[in-house]
């Protein structure tokens, strides 16, 4: 129709306006003097289908197709008042239209309607987290900046609560993302339910949420809210037919005392959250300035540890293990030492957890295993070496391979290597760990349970796996001659082990009286400062020299 005959075009080559109108993407409605629809173009017709707009007033047309909005403007149309302007219409299918009304010279009106659905949705999406409907990180930060600027004027405090879920990943992994997402929505619901109208809740990403609290007494309000959130979010969920439990940890920072810059305040709340999680989760913590120092110290230690690894500043020392029946050295436990260039010795209890966290425990573990095997190969055939194995080494699934390679390279017979396992290693993925242990034991390697009696359920592990040896934790050995409660425990462990065909070794023996008690209770072996401090490789080798008589008093390094 538009491009029919060239001679119908005006001279300048454009099609007539009346031909363009029906084709316009913008919906156009023309109202007559009576404010009734006289004309609709094709786009407008589609909007109101199946209702035929012709002859309707706008209020009638909108009502008959279930659309909302523009009531005021169209009421003015009908009442004859001048009604130019713009309004937003919402159709029954949630499409959004911006409607502009212009008066015509003949007394009617022309209405143009533009579909702004996508534009509006995008703007909303840009501000909101699509999953939970909470504000997103961008908006949270903007609001935080605004409130902090206000606070600078008014002097009123502003609190930021940083929250994340404990064990969320496990739920996501075991039940799948749809359940994880549904859980996040419920968490968001509980979070919102606990807030005052002035507070703002946001999802910052993953399972991290934040609340902005202003206009209330601090720190009392933040404390009350943090406690409420830990309780509320920690309550059981009934969801998609599952019964679920997650915990929440919360870190709190308050302006002005903890910072006036949005990023500083957020970072401090995050540090407090880090502390809450380190303190055992399911808790809330307020930011303290010391936290910054501790984190800094930790970061520094991380750099130093990586450097120590590269520069091979780690070394092994060897603590004698005495076989009580023969009073002879049956073996040594290899213990790791880290001496920093400034001569400070960092205890393993400090740097091993860090090494696990930053993922360098594997190379360290492997180095320990290879070095200890090589060292032990130089000792007499009757002397074994014990090496600690970390849970992370089990997780790789490469432990068997590493052990086999360390034995082969060093030439140490498998029977002279003992691996010490803690409950921590057994606790995770128990079946896989048990299989690994069984394979190692088939190779001839001995397996010992370390720190026995300090964990949760040692007895069940004894039933699951035939350990060669149980190491009785030093907390039961220290002062055993003076403390009437320790003796029965050690006696029970020795009896238990004997019944299961396992040997026992008492750790941390420091006095002759303790040694006498341990010997009387029938422990097979001892290890401790009394019978021998950790020694350098050279000192350990010297101790084993045939000329040297063995005594029960320890040699020192």
């Amino acid at each position, binding site marked *: 129709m538009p491009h029919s005959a060239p001679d119908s075009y005006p001279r300048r080559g454009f099609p007539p306006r009346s031909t363009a109108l029906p084709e316009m993407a913008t919906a156009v409605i023309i109202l007559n003097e009576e404010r009734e629809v006289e004309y609709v173009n094709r786009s407008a017709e589609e909007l109101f289908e199946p209702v035929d707009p012709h002859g309707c007033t706008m209020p009638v047309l909108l009502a008959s197709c279930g659309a909302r909005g523009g009531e005021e403007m169209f009421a003015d149309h009908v009442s004859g008042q001048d009604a130019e302007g713009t309004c937003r219409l919402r159709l029954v299918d949630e499409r959004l239209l911006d409607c502009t009304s212009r008066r015509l010279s003949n007394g009617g009106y022309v209405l143009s309607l533009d579909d702004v659905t996508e534009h509006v949705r995008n703007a909303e999406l840009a501000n909101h987290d699509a999953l939970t409907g909470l504000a997103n990180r961008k908006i949270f930060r903007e609001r935080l900046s605004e409130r902090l600027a206000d606070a600078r004027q008014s002097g009123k405090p502003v609190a930021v609560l940083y929250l994340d879920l404990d064990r969320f990943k496990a739920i996501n992994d075991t039940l799948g993302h749809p359940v994880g997402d549904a859980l996040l929505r*419920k968490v968001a*619901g*509980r979070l919102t*339910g*606990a807030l005052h109208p002035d507070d703002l809740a946001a999802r910052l990403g993953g399972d991290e949420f934040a609340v902005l609290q202003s206009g209330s007494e601090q720190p009392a309000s933040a404390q009350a809210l943090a406690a409420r959130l830990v309780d*509320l979010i920690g*309550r*059981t*969920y*009934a*969801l*998609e*037919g599952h*019964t679920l439990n997650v915990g929440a940890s919360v870190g709190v920072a308050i302006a002005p005392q903890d910072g006036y810059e949005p990023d500083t305040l957020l970072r401090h709340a995050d540090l407090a959250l880090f502390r809450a999680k380190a303190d055992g989760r399911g808790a809330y913590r307020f930011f303290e300035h010391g936290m910054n120092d501790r984190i800094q110290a930790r970061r520094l230690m991380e750099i130093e540890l990586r450097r120590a690894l590269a520069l091979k500043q780690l070394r092994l020392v060897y603590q004698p293990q005495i076989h009580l029946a023969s009073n002879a050295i049956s073996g040594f436990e290899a213990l790791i030492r880290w001496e920093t260039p400034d001569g400070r010795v960092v205890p393993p209890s400090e740097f091993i957890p860090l090494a696990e966290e930053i993922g360098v425990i594997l190379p360290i573990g492997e180095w320990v295993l290879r070095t200890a095997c090589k060292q032990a190969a130089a000792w007499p055939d009757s002397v074994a070496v014990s090496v600690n194995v970390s849970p992370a080494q089990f997780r790789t699934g490469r432990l068997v391979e590493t052990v086999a390679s360390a034995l082969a390279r060093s030439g140490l017979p498998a029977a002279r290597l003992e691996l010490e396992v803690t409950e921590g290693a057994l606790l995770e993925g128990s079946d896989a760990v048990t299989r690994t242990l069984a394979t190692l034991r088939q190779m001839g390697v001995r397996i010992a349970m370390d720190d026995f009696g300090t964990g949760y359920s040692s007895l069940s592990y004894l039933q699951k796996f035939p350990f060669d040896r149980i190491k009785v934790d030093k907390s039961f050995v220290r002062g055993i001659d003076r403390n009437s409660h320790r003796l029965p425990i050690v006696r029970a462990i020795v009896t238990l082990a004997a019944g299961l065909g396992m040997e026992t070794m008492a750790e941390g023996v420091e006095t002759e009286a303790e040694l006498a008690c341990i010997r009387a209770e029938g422990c097979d072996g001892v290890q401790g400062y009394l019978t021998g401090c950790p020694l350098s490789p050279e000192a350990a080798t010297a101790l084993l020299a045939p000329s040297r008589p063995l005594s029960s008093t320890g040699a020192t390094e």
Partner: protein
Amino acid sequence: MSNDLHRLVYYSRNKVAGEPGALEAAINGILAKSRANNAKAGVTGALMFNSGCFAQVLEGPREAVEEVFERIQQDERHGDVSLLAFGPAEARSFENWSMGFVGASVEDAARYGSLGPESGFDPSRLTGEALFEILHGLALDEENAD
């Protein structure tokens, strides 16, 4: 799937404070409101309470039951909510109730002395199943009395 009949049993610490009269009024209020709300959602069930705790069975389409339970979890009048049982059910056991009020008054809590020592009972010692049985029995009792 989401409309499968599910049954949920929980108990919680009653945090409604004040005189016995106030407690009774509060509980009547809760009942009236939940009767109306839950009937719309197709949830029926039974509520048992004394001065110490609430114990409740909810039955209905899974999503509706989950929604009602979520409201309860967010209700400050409940504390220490323990979910004792949640799973599919063959048929409703409290068909004719939008919500059953077991026991006419706070004083009547003593009537359920057989459930535990003194006036209160200790639901933590009961399994979801046992609690459900007790509620069921009491509900039948109440119906017969009408």
